[in-house]
């Protein structure tokens, strides 16, 4: 007599999100002294198409893996005529990101994902879209801009506020001009100017006041350091934007991306699953708590 249990599919295999897909660096563009954009093409079955604001786990062979938000995406063709392009912008802040930033065309990386929630840019349909970015926070917001500008008529005003520590820290500078020409109101400020800088100096928060015309009809998308998220969101609420109409992208340590490892907890949230993009209405009480 044998005891039979439930049949189990493919014993010993990896949960799909735990196995990286191999991608090859097709092109590399230095954005700033410490930030690089990689254009990646799949070397095998590609990942599912990411939605704006989602992130992947990028693996540098033998070094390690880090979460990186997707800054651009072109889907592959169904006949294989066109190959998927995954765009990721990385700032060198540790061993893995340094290894990824020095990857050259032809080098191979591992990609898992896409993970997490997205910006839901269409929540701003028929309304004013206000995008506020601090530093590399512009990278995960780029797909929102591209979505909006591809269907510009769906939105009323499209406003982009960009802040960076210094002119040398600004990313996507050439694209900012392109977006202006495509009817986005793009305003840039830096915390500290430098020789030759004729633009605005000051925190990005300061740009919010004049950027808003109809607060009740404004949907805001905010990404940057947590302190900047808080100050900007508070300013937006002060100006009359509803907390539920503000979406912020939060960051915590991430190891798995699949709600299995416990690292990305922020109170009740597992940010790899319930985030990174959450409504400010939900995030506000969590961000206010120290060491949560």
């Amino acid at each position, binding site marked *: 007599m044998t005891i039979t249990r439930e049949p189990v*599919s493919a014993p010993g295999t990896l949960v799909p999100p735990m196995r990286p897909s*191999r991608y090859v660096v097709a092109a590399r563009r230095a954005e700033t002294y410490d930030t690089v954009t990689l254009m990646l093409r799949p070397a095998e079955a590609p990942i599912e198409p990411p939605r704006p604001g989602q992130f992947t786990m990028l693996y540098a062979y033998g070094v390690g893996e880090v979460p990186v938000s997707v800054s651009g995406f072109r889907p592959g063709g169904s006949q294989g005529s066109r190959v998927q392009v995954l765009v990721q912008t990385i700032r060198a802040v540790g061993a893995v990101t340094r290894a990824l930033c020095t990857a050259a065309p032809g080098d191979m990386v591992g990609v898992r994902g896409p993970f997490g929630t997205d910006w839901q840019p269409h929540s701003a349909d028929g309304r004013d879209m206000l995008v506020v970015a601090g530093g590399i926070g512009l990278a995960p917001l780029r797909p929102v801009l591209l979505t909006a500008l591809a269907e510009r008529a769906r939105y009323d005003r499209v406003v982009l506020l960009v802040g960076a520590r210094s002119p040398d820290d600004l990313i996507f500078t050439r694209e900012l001009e392109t977006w202006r020409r495509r009817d986005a109101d793009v305003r840039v400020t830096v915390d500290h100017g430098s020789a030759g800088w004729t633009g605005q100096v000051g925190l990005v928060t300061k740009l919010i006041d004049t950027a808003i015309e109809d607060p009740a009809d404004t949907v805001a998308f905010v990404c940057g350091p947590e302190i900047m998220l808080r100050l900007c969101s508070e300013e937006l609420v002060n100006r009359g934007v509803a907390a539920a109409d503000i979406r912020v992208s939060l960051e915590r340590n991430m190891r798995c991306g699949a709600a299995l490892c416990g690292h990305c907890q922020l109170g009740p949230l597992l940010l790899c699953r319930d985030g990174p993009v959450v409504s400010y209405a939900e995030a506000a009480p969590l961000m206010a708590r*120290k060491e949560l």
Partner: protein
Amino acid sequence: MATATAIPDPRLIDAAGLENLCQALAAEGYHVVGPAVQDGAIVLRELSSAAELPFGWGVRLEPGGYQLRHRDDTAAFGHSAGPQSWKRFLHPPRERLWSATRTAEGFDLDGAEDDEPPRYAFLGVRPCDLHAIAIQDRVLAQPGSRYAARRARLFIVAVNCTEPGETCFCTSMGTGPGAEGGAYDLALTELVDERGHRFLVEVGSPQGADLLRQVPSERADHATLRQARSEVEAAADRMGRHMQADGLRELMADSHQAARWDDVASRCLTCGNCTMACPTCFCTTIEDTTDLTGEHAERWELWDSCFDLDFSYLHGGSVRTSPKSRYRQWLTHKLGTWHDQFGSSGCVGCGRCIVWCPVGIDLTEEVKALRAERDQP
């Protein structure tokens, strides 16, 4: 036409029957895992014979203290939770996720690990630990995962608890001392008295029924059934600890600023023992390695602890730097936000974290203090 198998009546086996049970499980290809005395504690390990069970051993428990003791009888399951839990078999402390080899183009991921997940038979799972397994299922049993594969192959012989320890509070958490039907294949209730050393065996699944048919047993009479029930009921009144479970979620949410966290932080060593001993703590980290040549890379998953400073590391520093914030994270997650994330409490009242804390921090005391602080006039 297939018909549903009726759950058979409870049966009785004697101490020799345990050995028959072990051998029947082994004959079905199961690795039998159960309690055994080793290194001055009752550990969980693979058993080759029921004779390795801790017959006649009990334990003395206190905050920060664990001691084996000789029992007055020969009971095999007359001890409460030990330093380990069943998670070390279903959710191993170290596991290789994949390996890769360098190639001219970059690297190749080696084929899926083709080792068949082991078929475990757990012998002697107490009701608190049955609930702990169910809690980890809700976190880790994602379709296609190795956890799910190991879990689907698992055979569970539960043991109703007739011997709660000084640090136990399963009745507070609603997880014991009796096992609920459906959570096991077979459930034992151990009886040692003038009529001998016997085990009432209840069947919880068709697999359990199949297996029990291979073990000589006799019909359990009503008196024995009643005796078994009353011993489990009596155990409910002998819990060494109590924790008021209702409103815990709200208490945790309300207590972020409590002064009690400073008090507990003055004692907590942030060693993480509680998270290792806890049967539901599931957190892991990832370790990417290469060999010296760089030709071969591996990814390993390892148990991690929210008490570790690096656990919350982001570029620029950790989010939870103070010991107070790390203890608060652990307790708040366990008793509060676990509900938000996985639909239940993360605590089963087994008391392991109290026993294995080197400074004897007792979460039932901490909860009492937090409640008193919040409710003070």
